[in-house]
């Protein structure tokens, strides 16, 4: 018997509703939910690879009801989200221990649910609803413990304002599409759009890109990101960088590829925008003194690379982009978690009463001796982000460059420019690595001994290395995922009736 994929959304939602009733035990709920999702999505992968599952909700035939489209792409993202969510929630078990703890865990689980819903749904308005769940929990988690957290509040306010403008754009675009075609089901919409020869279809597309672009953090819509990612608590920074912005990219790609069939002009714009995002992100990261802000800008850069890869609009390009999403998720999560633990330890030693979530790079000096495992994790993550072999970042960079070169011509030139960013990234990350290992700092009395925090490091580092050496394990699902994005006819064809 095949399990229904709707459980991927329903069960975490149920758990999220239960969480506020659990009091102190609430913190065990997110790992449970994420673990459930992880197992379920892994179980579903073989079935989905054979043929995508259409799950109608409410028992009516699509397009008359909301349906889930559980294709390889969706299940891949669901698995990634739940894996990341699981590891981060284990980390958070002992990391988040003060003040509004229960609310944190509920919102965290809601964020995961929203992300899962976005990637699984086959209905554009439903996508918007889940996207809003994701956004609202993000706003709140950015400002976690707002009462003690000046910068968190500021970042959250700014994030919320920009996010709301983006959401309004999305809703406008949905309205227009409904006005044009009278349906909300994505397959149905795609069918209509493929037939239509309207000269105004670019307007909803523009609103979609500008709207989802805020969450996807493409330049110049990403001004919230460095603020929000740098001031939120480490697990939240990790889930933002590793999952949330990737969901934005997913949404853009789903709209552009599946709904609108990837028109050339849009793809070139995305390509340029991706390149700009990459360069601006890396250049800004280069001059940061705050370690988390630096990593946040680095996330912008990586997202730029992802968008660039998708912008190539070839199968190899999309596969490369998806690979880069995986690699960025794993590496950036590890990076933020290790930074978080360092900040936590320093804070516990120096000012245990203040609520601190960010720190200067110089304060990390010399931690390599006191926190060897954490520092090793940081180094692995940084190396992977730069793209050193044998870590996973190397494989993804290889795929992206290969895809760009396969397309040849101007794309190869742009790729060459994009590679400059790697050099910049190397410069600033390795400076930090040097500081941690080879500089002297005041690190007396700091130690690492929390198993719950160290276990996720270990798993993530193992995954980064393992997938770096054997990238073949991912290629099958990524290939069929990119096939799903490109095969618009196939997507439409799944619509019964």
């Amino acid at each position: 018997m095949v399990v229904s994929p709707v459980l991927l959304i329903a069960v975490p939602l149920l758990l999220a509703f239960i969480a506020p009733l659990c009091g102190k035990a609430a913190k065990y709920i997110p790992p449970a939910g994420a673990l459930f999702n992880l197992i379920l999505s892994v179980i579903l992968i073989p079935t989905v690879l054979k043929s995508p599952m259409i799950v109608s909700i409410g028992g009516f035939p699509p397009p008359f009801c909301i349906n889930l489209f559980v294709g390889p792409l969706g299940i891949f993202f669901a698995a990634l989200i739940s894996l990341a969510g699981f590891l981060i929630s284990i980390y958070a078990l002992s990391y988040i221990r003060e003040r509004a703890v229960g609310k944190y865990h509920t919102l965290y689980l809601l964020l995961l649910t929203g992300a899962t819903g976005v990637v699984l749904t086959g209905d554009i308005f439903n996508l918007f609803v889940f996207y809003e769940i994701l956004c609202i929990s993000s706003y709140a988690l950015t400002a976690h413990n707002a009462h003690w957290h000046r910068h968190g509040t500021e970042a959250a306010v700014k994030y919320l304002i920009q996010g709301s403008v983006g959401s309004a754009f999305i809703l406008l675009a949905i309205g227009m599409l409904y006005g044009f075609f009278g349906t909300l089901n994505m397959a149905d919409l795609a069918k209509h759009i493929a037939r239509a020869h309207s000269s105004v279809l670019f307007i909803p597309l523009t609103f979609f890109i500008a709207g989802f672009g805020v969450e996807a953090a493409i330049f110049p819509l990403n001004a919230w990101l460095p603020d929000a990612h740098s001031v939120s608590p480490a697990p939240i920074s990790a889930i933002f960088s590793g999952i949330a912005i990737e969901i934005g990219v997913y949404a853009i790609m789903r709209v552009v590829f599946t709904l609108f069939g990837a028109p050339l002009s849009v793809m070139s714009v995305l390509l340029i925008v991706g390149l700009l995002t990459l360069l601006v992100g890396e250049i800004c990261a280069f001059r940061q003194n705050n370690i988390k802000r630096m990593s946040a800008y680095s996330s912008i850069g990586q997202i730029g690379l992802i968008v660039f890869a998708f912008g190539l609009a070839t199968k190899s390009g999309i596969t490369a982009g998806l690979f880069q999403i995986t690699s960025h998720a794993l590496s950036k999560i590890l990076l933020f978690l290790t930074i978080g633990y360092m900040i936590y330890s320093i804070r516990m030693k120096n000012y245990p009463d203040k609520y601190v979530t960010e720190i200067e790079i110089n304060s990390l000096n010399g931690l390599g001796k006191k926190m060897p495992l954490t520092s090793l994790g940081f180094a692995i993550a940084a190396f992977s982000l730069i793209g050193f072999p044998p870590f996973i970042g190397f494989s993804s960079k290889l795929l992206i460059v290969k895809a760009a070169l396969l397309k040849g011509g101007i794309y190869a030139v742009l790729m060459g420019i994009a590679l400059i960013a790697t050099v910049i990234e190397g410069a600033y990350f390795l400076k930090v690595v040097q500081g941690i290992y080879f500089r002297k700092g005041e690190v007396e009395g700091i130690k690492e001994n929390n198993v719950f925090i160290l276990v996720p490091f270990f798993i993530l580092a193992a995954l980064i290395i393992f997938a770096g050496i054997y990238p073949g394990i991912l290629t099958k699902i990524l290939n069929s995922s990119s096939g799903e994005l490109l095969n618009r006819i196939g997507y439409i064809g799944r619509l019964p009736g």
Partner: protein
Amino acid sequence: MRKLVSIILLGALAFGLVQAVKKIPFGVQKTKVGKYYVERGIEDTGSSNIVTSVVLNYRGFDTLGEVTILFAGAIALGAVLFTGKKRIEREVYPASPILSTACKFLFPLILLFGAYIFIHGHLTPGGGFQGGAIAASALLLIFLGCPGRKTDGRKTRLMESLGGIIFVLAGLLGLAYGGFFLFNFLPKGTVNNLFSAGIIPVLYIVIGFKVASEIAGILDNLFGETE
């Protein structure tokens, strides 16, 4: 300067919007999905308010998401305003007897009205959200008119959670009975009866309570004095 730039940019945006809207004729039947709902709604769901049947049955998943958003919003607001301190019991100036008496008099009436709205969601305009909001405005009246009164946070939270849990459980029961999440597994009954339309009234009542308690929680949090 900034104003000028924003006006120029908004002009460009307006141009785009107008371009798009030219293709959307106003006031013309254009949707096959909507038409289907109107034609088959009663038959499929047993609810005479088609909007309700769309909200809770055809697009019930959206509504689950919506409920979740409100839930998330309430939790988020609680988290943002959380100070970790006991609320200060400030000396309140009692409102004039006329005001408080009127409030107390109106309170059950508005509450009743709200309840009526969400119970009859499948028959008349309105439903869980509207009814819940109206019930919450009754609470708002009490907050304003009778200072010093407040809701019991634990109970509203319990209600919120229970509402959500029941909604999801109903969906899961549908999955178990009919093979579809949120499947309308209860008998549809006769149209235009109170006890008709399967799980729709059940869900709307649940939503009504949930929305009311959530908004009450939000208001309570906002009104609460914290230094």
